[in-house]
């Protein structure tokens, strides 16, 4: 084993351990701010894995998009909504946790089994390093042209939708009749069939 390959091995192990422990922390910690910061750490570690695979452009994009944009946005959202609220305790929480843990463990066992029994095509294609950016650009403008262009429509529509959801309503009158309107569904809320007699 050469120094290069053993260094690579050590880096891989450290990054993978970071990803596993970090993701467990994201899911299990009670404080949501810790979860958000750990998520940022996990994203950074994934970027490190991309670097190990010699895909520097993807690693840079990962850091810019996921750490720089998505994670910061999550943190903003958490800090804007700092409302203390005591949630009602959920019945049978331990049992639910055990059940969902069992389902996840089963899924993990299934994935590991599939992973072991499959004969993967190893080694994979040769990494092309710095030329990758060029190659990605070529793909975006040839065989992935349609999804690339459609993504712009998707982003435009998402932006319009975000503005519509966030802005203050300006319409108070019906355009057709000029009457004042009450924003919301036209259908009134249905009263439940069985009205609870115990409540006053």
């Amino acid at each position: 084993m050469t120094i290069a390959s053993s260094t690579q091995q050590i880096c891989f192990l450290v990054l993978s351990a970071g990803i596993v422990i970090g993701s467990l922390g994201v899911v299990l910690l009670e404080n949501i701010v810790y979860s958000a910061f750990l998520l940022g750490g996990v994203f950074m570690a994934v970027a490190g894995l991309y670097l190990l695979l010699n895909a520097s452009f993807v690693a840079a994009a990962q850091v810019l998009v996921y750490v720089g944009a998505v994670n910061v946005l999550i943190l903003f959202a958490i800090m804007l909504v700092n409302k203390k609220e005591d949630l009602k305790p959920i019945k049978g929480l331990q049992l639910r946790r055990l059940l969902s843990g069992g389902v996840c463990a089963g899924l993990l066992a299934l994935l590991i089994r599939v992973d072991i029994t499959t004969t993967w095509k190893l080694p994979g294609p040769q990494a092309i390093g710095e030329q990758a950016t060029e190659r990605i650009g070529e793909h975006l403008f040839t065989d992935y042209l349609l999804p690339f262009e459609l993504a712009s429509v998707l982003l435009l529509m998402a932006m319009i939708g975000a503005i519509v959801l966030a802005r203050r309503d300006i319409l108070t009158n019906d355009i057709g009749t000029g009457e004042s309107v009450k924003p919301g569904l036209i259908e009134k809320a249905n009263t439940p069939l069985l009205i609870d007699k115990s409540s006053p």
Partner: protein
Amino acid sequence: MPQMGALIFATQAMAAPEELLNIALNAGAIAPEGAVLLAMLGTLIVDLAGEKAAAKWSPPICYAGLGTALALLAMQWNGPIESSFLGSFLADNLAIAFRAVVALSTLLSLLISWRYAEQSGSPIGEYASILLAATLGAMLLCGATDLVSVFVSLETLSVASYLLAGYMKRDARSSEAALKYLLVGSAAAAVFLYGASLLYGISGTTNLQIIGVALLTSPTPIAALALVFILATVAFKIAAVPFHQWTPDVYEGSPTPVVAFLSVGSKAAGFALAVRLLVGCFSAFDNQWKLLFTVLAVLSMSLGNVVALAQTSMKRMLAYSSIGQAGFVMIGLVCGTEDGFAAMVLYMAAYLFMNLGAFACIILFSIRTGSDRISDYAGLYQKDPLITLGLSLCLLSLGGIPPMLGFFGKIYLFFAGWADQQYLLVIVGLVTSVISIYYYISVIKMMVVKEPQEASEVVKAYPSIQWKTIGLPPLRVALITCVLATAIGGVLSNPLFQWANTAVAGTPLLQEAIALKGTGALG
């Protein structure tokens, strides 16, 4: 086919740039989507001039865009089948048929939307443009032949649907519907990505055709895992039981015209995706996915129709009935014969008219009275004969009573299923059809049979009927078109049968599946 060779070459190993420039993009195949996109941008631009201008100019722009799209689709019909965008998109007859169903469902939903949107005080220009974006995604999904295109168009459709579901943001029900749809939908998208990454790992490409070839020789466990993941996404999109939990809540909380689009347009795109992925890609696992789909179809038909019996809200009842209807359509997909596919296409087109007709009626009723409770329809016959007649015809057709359009669609599906020896599916279908007739007829009974003094309070205070207000004339046009198509379409259904058969005959993907099945049955 030299082009196909070049294509495979281009997707597997990137050639020199000069060679790539010589490959034809064949971009004319997505001209109809171009028309929809232009209409979307047009509505955005007129919206800048204020709400009054948007209310005046958005409708004609949308009609022009969708009308052009439908005309362009008609021109592509039976045209030469060439892969476009280097294997990302294929405009075969099946794709054209489903894209036409999607575009027509958007056109009809827009016609019935305007009055509803104005009365609830929501901005119209943005509503139309988001709905058109959803249409664009759904239409591209119908013809996408590449995992990346499939995913991006699926997301365009889904994100637009979440936004539309939450469009009445001042109403807690609408926000709840949007949040539930977003969470469940994102989970489904994540599952699809997992399945797609496994498929890419098996084959090293994102092209569905090459993946299909690679799956013939791939090891079973991993391919089966990918199949399960992909199947879950498809079942989520067509709301098959047990992936249906989002449907009733989303349908009840979303604005009703949006529900009309979701129940037809989005579902049609889901079925097109099912054909592309399951029939086209997983032909090596035919027995497995057909078994799974049989289970899903039986569950959808029984649960959808039985739970619909207990509903008191019209929108919720139609939500459960749409789950049951999706189960009927799945019979055609499971058959995999020429008749099965044709019956699926035919039933989808019939379902478009009868379901949108029913939605036009209940929207008109809620615009006039502000209610969607079934018991509030009591005695409506005295006050509003048009809604009564239209809703009765559409519900009878959904139940499959002759001589409506729905009867011929359903009988063709059952015939195809019986011919392919899917006895379980056909018997469950017949029994649940009878159950569905019961709850459809009880609505009709509520409207027609009650004496004037037994009428509900809402109907007793019914406003005088007028059609002058802006937005009501288009609604009337849509209502009458759908009801006429449902009522007369059954008697004159021969062109529709021919159309559905041509759709199957002009699709190489389906022809291959049928030929494969034929040799399998002989050998």
